[in-house]
């Protein structure tokens, strides 16, 4: 695997059994994600964005082809090995935040660190840092129910980023947010992308998100239709 590549996908096909036959959700997908890229998967509903993210995240298995994530070929890996990969190397951001309602902001962010068995003082340091990145140091003790949607997604970002994963996978992270919050979230993510050189891959419909992407992969009917590299994203032009 190329040192520079965080994900390598070769001849990927994904079929879902439907009725007697099958439905092809992804076909002939071959691409690489480069370290530090801020990539968007864009395409109409049903074009296979979520399916591709699932496969990269080890949540679903390809029908054909090979996928290598963080130097680990996913083919033939069992449930535990894939969980280990996610635990150590991948952060997830969901459309609906998925915070744990009974825990405080601090505890929600702390959770992934508990999973990797980190010591308490180290956890505290990292959580504080992550909350600072997303600008929520004043909400440490709040519960999710006391936060706005934008704030919830910022907590979710802190939770994804706190263990400093090499790759963050986000499925429609701004879909439940208004324009102002969407921009705010994207700015935070761009900032983290540059600070930590974390690689990001999004699935999105959202025009606002596209302005931040350094690369846009257009999916149509499970096929890569176009692969755009953007040297100067929209948001920088404004400045």
């Amino acid at each position, binding site marked *: 695997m190329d040192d520079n590549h965080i994900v390598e996908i070769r001849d990927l096909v994904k079929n879902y059994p439907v009725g007697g036959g099958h439905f092809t959700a992804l076909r002939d997908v071959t691409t690489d994600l480069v370290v530090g890229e801020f990539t968007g998967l864009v395409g109409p509903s049903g074009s296979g964005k*979520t399916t591709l993210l699932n496969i990269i995240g080890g949540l*679903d298995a390809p029908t054909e082809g090979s996928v290598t994530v963080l130097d680990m070929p996913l083919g033939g890996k069992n*449930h535990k090995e894939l969980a280990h990969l996610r635990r150590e190397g991948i952060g997830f951001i969901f459309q609906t935040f998925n915070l744990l309602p009974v825990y405080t902001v601090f505890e929600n962010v702390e959770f992934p660190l508990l999973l990797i068995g980190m010591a308490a003082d180290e956890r505290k340091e990292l959580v504080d840092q992550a909350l600072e990145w997303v600008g929520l140091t004043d909400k440490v003790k709040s519960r999710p129910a006391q936060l706005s949607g934008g704030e919830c997604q910022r907590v979710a970002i802190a939770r994804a980023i706190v263990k400093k994963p090499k790759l963050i996978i986000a499925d429609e992270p701004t879909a439940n947010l208004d324009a102002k919050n969407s921009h705010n979230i994207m700015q935070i993510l761009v900032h983290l992308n540059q600070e930590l050189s974390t690689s990001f891959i999004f699935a999105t419909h959202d025009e606002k998100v596209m302005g931040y992407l350094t690369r846009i992969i257009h999916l149509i009917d499970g096929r890569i239709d176009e692969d755009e590299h953007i040297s100067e994203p929209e948001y920088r032009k404004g400045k």
Partner: protein
Amino acid sequence: MLRFLIKGVFRDRSRSLFSLIVITLIVALTVFIRGFMAGIFDDVFRQSAVIFAGHVKVTTQAYTKEADLLPNDLAILGADSLVAALAQQYPEMFWSSRIMFAGLLDVPDEYGETKEQGPMLGFGVDLFSPESRMLEIWELERKIVRGRLPEEPGEVLLGETFATRLGVEPGEVATFIGASMYGGFVTYNFDVAGTISLGVTGIDKNILIADLQGVRQALDMQDAAGEIVGYSHDMFYDDPASVALAADFNVNVDDPDNEFSLFMQPLRDHTQMGAMVDIAGYMMGIVILVFVAVTVLVLWNLGLMNGLRRYGEFGMRLAMGETKGHVYRTTMGEAVVMGIVGSFIGTVVAVPLIWYLQEVGLDYTGLFEDMTFVVSNIIRARLTPDCYYLGFIPGVVATVAGTMLAGRGIYKREMSQLFKELELEA
């Protein structure tokens, strides 16, 4: 990690409270029933032990064979030294000689002619030796209806119904008519000191309680005793211990050729008591089994409901790289803690209740009049040592089993659906 999750369990009232209430209730009920049944059975055992069988009882072989006839001609001779020897050999019990005897009790009118007469069952027990605990275990002081306790060997207590039927008052004389140890005809005048109600169905109709020495005199039985009874110091019938003690004793004295050789019988071997002892054990087992089953079902359901509520949480945790096994095991860990806490609370709730019923009791006079075995009219629970831990069996076992069944869903989870599921959450 588990600490983190437990924190969540107890913060999430709607998740934990109902489960906790169910566990607490079941545990409290189990413990309570245990205490209650222990009390009832203990009462049955105690009444039978005090009045009839002792926790163990020594008689001669021949006496045992014809025990129904109260054959005092087959009594133990040299009883007092045997009691001393038993006390030395088996200090875990206290020992006392006694004589059971039957005959007629005759109440004379002012001219000495028979006014009333009736069959009686007499108990000569050691009322006056300073070391004797017979007054205490018969609870005679508490059970006096009229008159007072005997103060001399010639004074007796009569069952209240017996005395009423015979028309005899405390302070009057009643004449025993029967046979001496050697088969001779005996009449003996006892002074009636008082009447008692033992609270034991059937026996107050014909009971006479006298001091051992008085009865020895009446029946010409110096230093003899029909029976020597032994009781554990706390008066709690320990079946295995009593059986073992009797077996140990019998090994040393058994002589099939000598009908006067001694023989010790545990309470279990007295009429229906063996069955009672066994039933007491089985019933407890069945109660626990039923409760475990019910609790498993309830908690299984609760677990399934909680599983639905926590679907998002489990999904998120799986996505974050927790293994299914780990999610399952930590959920189990939560259940164990919940089970322990619930069991603890349940036990804390039940124990004072049992204690109250042990100290105060529940009067149910009249409810069980037709019962054949000897029962008192007051139900007392008994706070047995196992009350403190028994509840943890249904509490913890059932909680874990219920959660185990409910948690199987975690393994069925399709990982590829996580993103979709998590999107539906909103």
